[in-house]
């Protein structure tokens, strides 16, 4: 297909028919804010934060769901666009329990929000796209006052080991629904009820545990606010305090790429590496939540030698000497093939290489295998 031209912020750009305005902008490093847009899923255009001004059109158009057309002239930060985004942000901040310093502007004194006995401070403060946009567009949250103040917040769902659902902080962007239905295709959650009663529901509005949820946590990774948070990372994890270390998942053979969020050399949470091969940001329950075994008290911490039916602690020096001496003695008596070894399909390549090298070049036997076929 032949590429065509549009103009964004006075820049003339090529696009391929079928691309949305947002896709063309992203390709050319032009930033357009998004909230509900989830890459790879069907654009819904529901939050309207990505609206842009298209010359000749009476209304603003959502960039995520408007196809680029030849000779369009687009402004992504015109006064009209900015005013609209500010208004949307005011409405979103007033729509729920957004009690960070920004969302509680309507209280005049943000500290008052902390004294609201119905709630905690938002756990996503500092990791919230709504907050980021409020800062960017200098929105205080004072413009709209909610009809009932203070309202009783719907209760949080905490009855599963991994995910806390706080409906009071949900902005109904629907990213979690798309993550569940279009990305992971587990079909556990959807929009429920209507109008002001709208809510994200699992099954027929039951706790996740009682639904089809398989706790992949894709919804948590997709949530732009504080509505879905990893239970064990709540209030533990502050993005500016943690180092992000990319690694490979230790479970199945897909080899998903993980970002470990590490504070004081301790993993606090795990997310998928967006766009990384092969998993493109996706994880399963084990990859996302199954990392705490490394901190188990059961870990072997020192070499152990069997003695009198039990085990006693030993130094590396003693243990290594003993292993070498016993193997030497067995090889002297029974030949190299009296030794056999099983390597580990969980450990790194370099470990398996090193073990087969030990068996072949030092012990002089090929009796080395692992659970390759099972």
């Amino acid at each position: 297909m032949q590429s065509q031209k549009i103009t964004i912020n006075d820049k003339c750009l090529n696009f391929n028919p079928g691309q949305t305005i947002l896709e063309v902008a992203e390709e050319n490093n032009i930033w357009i804010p998004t909230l509900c847009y989830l890459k790879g899923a069907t654009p819904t255009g529901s939050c309207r934060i990505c609206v842009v001004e298209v010359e000749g059109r009476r209304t603003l158009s959502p960039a995520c769901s408007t196809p680029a057309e030849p000779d369009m002239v687009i402004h992504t930060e015109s006064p009209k666009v900015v005013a609209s985004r500010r208004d949307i942000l005011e409405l979103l901040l007033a729509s729920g329990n957004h009690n960070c310093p920004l969302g509680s502007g309507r209280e005049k004194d943000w500290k008052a929000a902390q004294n609201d006995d119905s709630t905690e401070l938002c756990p996503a403060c500092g990791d919230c796209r709504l907050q980021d946009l409020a800062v960017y567009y200098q929105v205080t949250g004072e413009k709209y006052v909610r009809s009932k103040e203070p309202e009783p917040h719907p209760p949080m769902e905490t009855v599963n080991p991994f995910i806390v659902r706080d409906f009071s902080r949900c902005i109904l962007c629907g990213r979690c629904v798309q993550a569940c239905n279009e990305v992971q295709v587990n079909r556990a959650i959807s929009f429920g009820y209507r109008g002001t009663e709208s809510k994200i529901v699992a099954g027929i509005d039951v706790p996740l545990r009682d639904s089809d949820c398989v706790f992949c946590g894709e919804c948590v990774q997709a949530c732009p606010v504080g509505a879905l948070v990893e239970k064990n990372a709540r209030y533990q994890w502050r993005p500016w305090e943690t180092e992000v270390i990319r690694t490979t998942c230790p479970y199945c053979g897909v080899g998903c790429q993980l970002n470990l969020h590490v504070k004081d050399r301790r993993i606090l949470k795990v997310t998928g590496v967006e766009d990384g091969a092969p998993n493109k940001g996706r994880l399963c329950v084990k990859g996302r939540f199954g990392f705490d075994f490394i901190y188990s008290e059961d870990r072997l911490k020192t070499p152990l030698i069997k003695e009198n039916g039990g085990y006693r602690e030993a130094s590396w020096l003693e243990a290594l000497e003993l292993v070498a001496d016993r193997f030497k003695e067995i090889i002297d008596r029974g030949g190299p093939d009296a030794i056999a070894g099983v390597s580990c399909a969980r450990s790194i390549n370099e470990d398996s290489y090193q073990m087969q090298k030990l068996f072949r070049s030092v012990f002089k036997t090929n009796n080395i295998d692992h659970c390759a076929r099972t």
Partner: protein
Amino acid sequence: MTNSFAEFARAKMFLVIGSNMAEAHPVAATFVKNAVLNGAKLIVIDPRKHRLVDFADRHLQLKVGSDIALLNAIMHVLIQEDLYDKAFATGCCTDFEKLKEKVLEYPPERSADICGIDPNTIREVARELAAVKPAMLCYTLGITEHTCGKNNVMTTANLQMLLGNMGVACGGVNPLRGQNNVQGACDMGALPNVYHGYQKVDDPEIRKKFEKAWGVTGLPEKPGLMIPQMMDGLANGRVKGFYIFGENLANTEPDMDKVAHELDSAEFIVCQDIFPTETTRFADVILPAAAWSENDGTFTNSERRVSRVRTASPAPGEAKPNWWIFKEIAKRFGHDWPANSAREIWDNEISGLAKNFNGIKYSRIEADGLQWPCPSEDHPGTCVLHSSGEFTCGLGRFSPADWSPPAEIPDEAYPLVLSTGRRLYHYHTRTQTGRCEGLNDLLGEETADISFADAERLGVEHGEAVTVRSRRGAVTVKANVTSEVPEGMVWMAFHFNEGCANRLTNAAFDPETLTAEYKACAVTIEKIDQAAAG
């Protein structure tokens, strides 16, 4: 895998056989489901109605261990109705005539008696497979864990070659590997017959190359023992010293009582692990190892992608990296190995000594990993194997096989078939996941999954404790009455030491690969009161 995960989402058709992908490889399954939502066809062949079946156009619920009969019948139809890829099957492959001769012995009517699938369904599936090109074939341990495992694998390859689905994107034969680095452990030569990069130990030229690289002489010529032979060796005294690195053999091998006897017979056992396991209690020396997030290194996934593993936290106490431990033992035999980090081992030894890895260096895999073969440092890696239509040994060779039944089939005393596998919330013998609080919360015990029909016949309620008994042993677990399992089948995992299915499984092996038949043995289910009385 001949192909790559990135192709899944854009594939047009899948044949998934013997793979409970949605539980055992959940992220891979998401890409299959994406493709289905985009219009791809999905045919699932499996005795169980597992979660992926919800997305399938067809589910062929075959009898356990009848895969070859079914696939041969599909190929029979493809040849009889002239639906196969003639150019590929005869031009790019050899022994087509042998295949033809064999599969013609499997008309759908004959195979139907063996596999339980209606002959007309078999014909329709053959036509559907021929109508969409290419199709991706994915399999997992449902294919390999049989006494005919090797023949099963060959038969899946026969089918894909006959359909001309090899060497193209969105096609191929794609075994999803079970463990994070089982591909890597094979690639690294933790196998009795090859050095890393599948270089044969019985080739004198190759031995000479490694003798030079490693600065040694007299590398052993004869391929070594596979795990089941080692276990036999322990019992008969031929193997005296046993080094077990990170495997929980006591619970993962079939027939646990037999395994315990074998481990008990060893003169000297070293276990190197991160946790005490059911296996370490047989050890004379236990060496504490650094775990996954305490190491720098690489894993290789199912699609041959070498990706980085990085250190995030310190190892507890005195635990040490495994490569260091091996190096220290070598030192005590007078061998001084130069490499002093995983990176040095890879960059200075592994990469240079095998053509497939020549182009893979740590500096190139900082972000996404590279897929071998990657013969040079400007090579982008290989997503699709055999894409020039040429196979590893020159041409693709058809290896036709006859169906053979599992080693142990149900009879009057043990009327049900037990098949084993993995569940979503746990991994293998739970040495890791069993120590993740939340995962235990979601799945805390083993069950015996049985059909409604069998439950009714036995008078067993959902959740009632039952005894599952085979000729090897018995376990007591709760019955999970489910529509996933067909009548006549019991399905269990081997995650929990209590109620571990490997107390029941049969230590019968494929004659060549020595893979155990975890997928089929005969059992009986007894209500607890009966068991007590009996």
